[in-house]
Every structure is written in C-alpha cells, then in structure tokens.
C-alpha cells in the first residue's frame, strides 16, 4: 500500500517567549521541531505498514530548512521524502497550502491513505487536512486516535468526538487527521537509522514541478489575510497567599465573592 504523510516543521511554541516591553515574539534560539501531531501520524503509518507492507512518502511544504524535519522522518522510518519549496509558495494560508499539497499528491499518483496531524502547533488551525481531502475529493476522518483495521479497500478508525469516541469505516483512498494518544512516546532514531536515512531519497519540488502556474499558490492564492499580529494582553500580576488553611480559604471565598463568582 502507498501511504503519504503530510508533515510540517514548526517552531517549538513552548520555547517561544514574548518580550514584555515590546510585545514581540523572541524567536532567537527557538528550535524548530517536527509538529508533534505529525510525528504521531507518521508512527501510525509505520505501525500500519509493518502489517500491510508498502511505502511511506512524507510530504512537506516549507522553506529549505524544513529538510531537517524530513530527514528525521526518514530516520524514524519513512521511505522517501519530498519538500515543496519555492518562493512562489511563501505566504500560503490553509487554502493555498492544501492547494499546493494537493498538486503534489496528484503528481505522486497512486496512494491509499494520507496521514495528517490534526493540527500544527504553530497556527493551530486544524484546517489543512480537511481542505486537502476535499481538494482531492477523498473522504476524511478527523480526530483519529488509531487505525483499528485496514485492508485493500477500507479502513476502520477510532476517532474522538465531542462526546466520546466513534469507530468509523471508510473506503480507500482516504485522509486521516490524527490527534495523539497519551501513551505515545516519540521514537528516538538510532545512529544506524540516522545514517541509513542519508541514503534515502529527499527530493525538492518547486512550482515548475507542480505546474498550474496560475493556481492558488502562496500569498496571492490565499483568501485570508493577516493584517495585524500583536501580543495578547498580559495577565495582571496575581495575588499569591501563603496562610494556614482556614485563613487561606477565607481569603479565597472573599476573592470569589469580589469577582462575582459566588
């Protein structure tokens, strides 16, 4: 079976700090990581491939340095990687991103399943997966936790809903967007695997490889426009008390009253 995993390199948002004076983000020294949800999705793809056999292609759109994330995917167990990188792709919103990914998937040809993360931790939109599915006109399942069964024609997934879980079946090809399970431990590739990854193919495709020059690429192809970015209002200084339990509870009650909660 042919699996495509869409991955994104993101800044480690937990390391992002905001300069309280200027209100700007301090990006210096913030490491780039493989989006955690995508890493989980890739691991699911590897787990499934162990049973079904086949080939895993990781696909990413991003600047040249996103190669790092793809190398990591190859070391973890992907067979081949493709980076979509071109000046023309810069400034893409979710629509333009899914448009571009869709062209690449079409160029790749036959596939059975596309794996996405539920969301990328930088933008947190959770839109690229469903938008890509619709561009390709294939069924989608979002908030997927695991693949329970798969055969030549169909897949059964366990997915989270607002109220619990569902087991859902879909024909193939299909697109799955993964959340992660609490038990998931990212795999740290061995030296051998890292070395082995060097001999795997990592290609770069630009707009000429995808064709459709008047397509909705990059900023021009993006219907949404970010017009302002600013830091959120800082939370005021809090009150911290350290008192014996009775007194502490008195003060807590007082506070709840003063805020109109009780």
């Amino acid at each position, binding site marked *: 079976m042919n699996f495509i995993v869409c991955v994104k390199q993101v800044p480690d*948002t937990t390391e*992002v700090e*905001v300069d309280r004076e*200027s209100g*700007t983000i301090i*990006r210096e020294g913030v490491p780039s990581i493989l989006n955690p949800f995508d890493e989980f999705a890739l691991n699911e793809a590897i787990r499934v491939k162990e049973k079904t056999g086949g080939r895993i292609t990781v696909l990413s759109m991003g*600047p*040249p340095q996103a190669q790092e994330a793809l190398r990591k995917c190859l070391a973890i167990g992907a067979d081949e990687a493709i980076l979509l990188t071109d000046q023309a792709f*810069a400034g893409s*919103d979710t*629509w333009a991103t899914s448009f571009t990914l869709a062209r690449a998937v079409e160029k790749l040809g036959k596939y059975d399943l596309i794996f996405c993360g539920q969301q990328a931790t930088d933008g*947190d*939109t*959770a*839109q690229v*997966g*469903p*938008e890509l*599915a619709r561009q390709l006109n294939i069924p989608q399942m*979002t*908030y997927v*936790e695991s693949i329970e069964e798969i055969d030549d024609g169909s897949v*059964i997934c366990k997915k*989270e*809903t*607002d*109220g*619990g879980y*569902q*087991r*859902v*079946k879909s*024909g193939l090809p299909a697109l799955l967007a993964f959340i*992660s*399970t*609490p038990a998931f431990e990212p795999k740290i590739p061995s030296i051998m695997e890292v070395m082995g990854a060097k001999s795997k193919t990592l290609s770069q495709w630009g707009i000429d490889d995808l064709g459709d020059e008047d397509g*909705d690429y990059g900023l021009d192809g993006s*219907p*949404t*426009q*970010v*017009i*302002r*970015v*600013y*830091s*959120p209002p800082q*939370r005021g200084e*809090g*009150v*911290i008390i*350290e*008192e014996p*339990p009775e007194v*502490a509870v008195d003060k*807590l009650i007082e*506070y709840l009253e003063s*805020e109109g*909660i*009780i």
Partner: protein
Amino acid sequence: MIKVDQEKCTTCGICVDICPVSAIEISEGVISIDRGSCTLCGVCVSVCPVNAISIKRKAKTEDTSGYKNVWVFTEVASGTLKPVVFELLGKGRELADKLDQKLCAVIIGSGADKFIDELGAYGAELIYMVDDPIYENYSTDAYTSAISQLITEFKPNIFLYGATHVGRDLAPSVASNLGLGLTADCTDLSIEEEDNLLLQTRPAFGGNVMADIICPNTRPQMATVRPNVMEPLAPDENREYEVIERKISIPSRSVRTKILETISGREEHEVGVEEGDCVISGGRGMGSADKFEVLDELAGLLSGVVGCSRPIVELGWIPKSRQVGQSGKTVSPRLYIACGISGAIQHQVGIRNSDIIIAINKDPKAPIFDIADFGVVGDLHQIIPRLIDRLKKR
C-alpha cells in the same frame, strides 16, 4: 511581492527586530529583505512607522456584492443544541445589526424542526432547514454538500461555526469545496468600520500572539469560533422568525464514511471541558484517582466541569478528552482552578484565555503561580475540603 521604499525608510530597525524569520537586515545603511526566507507574513508592514514596506496582493475579481446576512451553523449533539450555537447567535446578532443584515441559523438534521423555536428565541430571524434521515448523524460528506448548496443558493455574507469537533471537521471541508477563506478558532469578531469586512481575531503560536485576519475577496467570510467566549442573548419567545425549508437529498453512497459504533466517553448532556464556564483541573499533586471525587464535588457547587493535566490521563485516572493543554484541550472559561498542577508551559498554553485563574499548590515556586490571578500556597487536601464546606454553608 514585498517592497521597501528606500526614500521613506529611516532604517530605524524596528522591522529587523520584529521579523519572525529574521529575513530583514540593515547593511550599509539600507534595509534589505531576503526573499528566500521571507514568508510575507506582513508583520513588518504593520509595525513600520513610516509605511515604507508594502506587500502587493493579487486582487480577486469575484463579485462579492450580492452576499448578505450572517449565518450560524446549528450543531446538535445527543438530541440538544450545543451551547456554542447560542453564543454564535449572540455574536451574530451584534454583527448583523452592525451591517443592517439578517441573522440566520442553518439547521441540518433528521427531525430538525423541533429546534426552530429555540433558535428563534435566541435571536435567529431566518432559519434555513434541511430535514432528511440521511442527516441523522453528522457526516462530513452529506453536511458539506447540503451547506455548499445553501451557500450557493442564498449567498450569505458571513458564516460562523463553533470550533467543536464537528465544526472543525465541517467548516474546512466547506471552505475547500467552495474555494473560500476560513479563519480557525476565533476568540473575537467585529466589523471593520471602513469596509464592513469581518475582522477575525485568533490566538496563534500556542497563544503567544494574537492575529487579526480578514477575508476580503471570498464570500461568505467564514470562521470557526471557540466555545465559551461569546455571550448568548437572553432567550425571548416573542422574537419572530421565519423558516425556509429546502429539500436536499444526498444519495447515501455519496456518504463515504460509516459510523460503526459510538462509545460515550461521558454521561449524556455532560459538558466537555472546552465548553465549561468553570473548569476545575487536578494534576499529579492530587495524589490518587479517588481524590478526584473531591473535585467533582467542588465542580458541582460551582457549576463547573473537571479537567486534568497530562500525567493524569497517562495514569488512566481521567479520559483523554478531559486533558487540558497543548496536546489536549484549549479552554477559555470564566474561572479556571488548577489543583496540584505545576503549570508546565504545555499546560499553560491551554488555559491562557481563561478570565480568572486560581491555583492551589504547595510549592510556592510552581510556575502555575506565574499566570494565576489568585494563588494559594498550601496543601490542597486541607484546602479543598474546607472550601467545599464553606460553599455548602452558603
């Protein structure tokens, strides 16, 4: 294309410092932008004090003038309307009034008519109803088709969805289907004075920044909206409304996914953490699973719901759907109480938008106190039972 007008530029360097990808440089007294790393995010444009930087966008030619009214997607779950629907109607009312347009609800389902009175009472003037057994359970395919058809026929100006599991599955599917812009998980919406566009505000980068987004060239302007941040109107049964019913039949084979089993993760009608107006979370400091009963009791007294930090899910004490934080749920309640939670950054990003954060932790150095509005340093096993006693006596 991004351009710097060197005549206007004073090389003050603000853009150099603010560029998120370090693509701007001053060398030999001129600003230069490295096109290779620039992502055209536009941050520099918005901070330049002399408007020397510009980005040129390709104008879309589509005629947007015929699109009117504010639509709200009506999500039904286990036989009731989701609370976010009322919140969207509350916000939608404000937007519609500002634009002098109508507020409309879209309800798709099987037996959908039983909700229309309620939708009317909460402010919908016009209700578009599609009623057919095929819509009994939510499916991406059937709902996307029905909504796409309604949009094409009735041309709404704005279309809001709750940022719930269903909303975040459906809205991007519709957006992609019709080639529309879509803004995810908004925490504020307003109408821009100058051009009457919908100004959509949302957090990004784990809540470290806020972004204002517009969608000038496609209609409807679509957004998913985070539950619990908008205010519903007080219901009024005397509000008048009109219903437009459309028969949209979808062949069942065009629904390509099939629900085999539904496993309830919680009691019926129980509220999810992301919808709670008061969320009380416990962390590893709770000590053991049975101690969470105390939190349930406190939640009962404060009309709250119980959430938790990640280790609690890993320990299997509470289901994953109640985990708060980066790899769990983002919450924005009026009141968040963190009990025995250290407040690691991954937890903090999920609670930043709460109105009030109260923390109870015995370690005065716990990072949770950095973002708490009211922090109590002490043993939660002594504090919470006393708090419960006091609340009961009131």
